[in-house]
């Protein structure tokens, strides 16, 4: 057993976990000040709920050898998952190390969805949604793509760090969620991010954590990790530059929120490709991600569809581009640029099946939660007007009364 790889896996896992508070601040800065705590709590509470679900049954459903579509119950409570052996994953690190690393991915994925439902979703219902979504949407798709007997894995889909499982999955679920919960009250007036430095802080923490996400996904401390690290940074940088330039062309100003969004879009797009492309492939992927997500956001605004924090535009569109671009730019003579369309085809199958499954099952889960008495998706109008921080959490992000 390579102690270097084990050390890197533990650090990479911690880096991925740290993306969750990064996301919390990224989203928290983008909303109005009266909903800052609520928005941050969506991500933070996922660290609690999903960690528990993962240990109890999530890992077992995702990685048990239960056939092509879902795992089984062999590893409930992480029973028989060895801290020294490599029976399940056959990786360079013990199985329990892989289970830890994968746990962090399961936490951040549903947290990504919350950008779509920000400023109006009922928090109690959200906790139940987290449990159901990780169980019925995340675990099966993770099994398809990453488990040794998953059908997309066996097909030959290349998804290095989770473009389908994490980003397309979250982006599509976000569309279903934003549609069912409906528009925010008063959003047509235009809603301004309340704390742009939070947005930059959050995006920077995401970028930092993404090195664990991508460079850790080879499950080893080796040259592949180095390559993944480099292409991750390169794609993020390229997409950031594209966003500020396109923003300047369209508005005459260079937006900091735009720069942060561009960086995240580049990180999303390179995720599935990070173990398979070289530096120039990363430049191309970052360039494509910047252009596509920039115009996706503009089109979303034209439609007036209230995916509040652009989860579909950034993670959905960025993820789809990344998955397809992996098939185009993959090195080793199997990419479209080398005249071979097989990987592109396999990845297209993964994209389409993820979109279909995630949308339908997320829709059904939310529909059921909506009709259960006492639950429902939406906070009441008075709570939404006053802000969800005081209404649902009994706390205020900014206390400025000076009276006490």
């Amino acid at each position, binding site marked *: 057993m390579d102690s270097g790889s084990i050390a890197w896996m533990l650090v990479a896992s911690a880096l991925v976990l740290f993306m969750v508070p990064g996301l919390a601040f990224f989203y928290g800065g983008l909303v109005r000040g009266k909903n800052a705590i609520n928005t941050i709590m969506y991500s933070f509470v996922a660290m609690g709920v999903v960690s528990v679900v993962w240990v109890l049954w999530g890992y077992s459903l995702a990685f048990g050898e239960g056939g092509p579509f879902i795992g089984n119950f062999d590893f409930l409570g992480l029973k028989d998952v060895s801290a020294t052996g490599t029976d399940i994953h056959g990786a360079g690190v013990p199985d329990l190390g892989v289970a830890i690393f994968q746990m962090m991915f399961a936490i951040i994925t549903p947290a990504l969805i919350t950008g779509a439902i920000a400023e109006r979703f009922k928090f109690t219902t959200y906790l139940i949604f987290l449990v159901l979504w990780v169980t019925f949407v995340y675990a099966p798709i993770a099994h398809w793509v990453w488990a040794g007997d998953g059908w997309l894995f066996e097909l030959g889909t290349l998804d290095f760090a989770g473009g389908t499982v994490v980003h397309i999955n979250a982006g599509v679920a976000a569309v279903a969620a934003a549609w069912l919960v409906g528009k925010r009250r008063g959003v047509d007036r235009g809603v301004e991010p309340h704390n742009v430095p939070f947005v930059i802080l959050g995006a920077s923490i995401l970028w930092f954590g993404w090195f664990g996400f991508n460079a850790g996904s080879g499950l080893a401390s080796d040259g592949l990790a180095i390559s993944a690290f480099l292409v991750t940074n390169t794609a993020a940088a390229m997409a950031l530059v594209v966003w500020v330039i396109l923003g300047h062309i369209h508005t005459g100003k260079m937006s900091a929120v735009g720069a942060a969004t561009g960086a995240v879009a580049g990180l999303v797009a390179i995720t599935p490709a990070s173990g398979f492309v070289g530096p120039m492939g990363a430049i191309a992927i970052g360039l494509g991600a910047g252009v596509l997500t920039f115009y996706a956001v503009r089109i979303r605004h034209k439609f007036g569809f209230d995916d509040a924090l652009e989860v579909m535009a950034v993670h959905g569109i960025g993820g789809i581009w990344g998955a397809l671009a992996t098939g185009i730019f993959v090195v080793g003579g199997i990419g479209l640029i080398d005249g071979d369309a097989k990987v592109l085809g396999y990845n297209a199958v993964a994209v389409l099946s993820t979109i279909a499954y995630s949308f339908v099952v997320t829709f059904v889960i939310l529909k059921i939660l909506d009709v259960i008495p006492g639950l429902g998706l939406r906070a009441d109008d008075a709570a939404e007007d006053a802000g969800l921080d005081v209404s649902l959490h009994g706390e205020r992000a900014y206390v*400025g009364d000076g009276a006490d």
Partner: protein
Amino acid sequence: MIKIEAVVRPERVNPVVDALIDAGCGGYHVANVSGKGTQQGVEVFTGRGATTTTRAALPKSIITTVVSASMKDAVVNAIIEAAKSGEEGQIGDGKIFVSPVSEVIRVRTGERDSAAL
């Protein structure tokens, strides 16, 4: 000329300022304040989420506008309409203060009184 100061709920600021412009006001300003009227305070956590306390001062917004005396009733009614919660209204919807203004001067031109409004 009269000054109209309306203390309203922060979430009613947008409807109220829209109503002011519709009623013909040339401008307004908004200040976010906190204070206490008839309404009870807001309950917040102070014991790490385990105990609560009631803060007397609530967040409110004051919208101030100066108009000619003839517009007073129209503007006041517009504010009431826009600031009220529902048909009946609720405690905490706010209060309107009306007071005379002796002089108005526009900084840029030095125009005075109604020409400066």
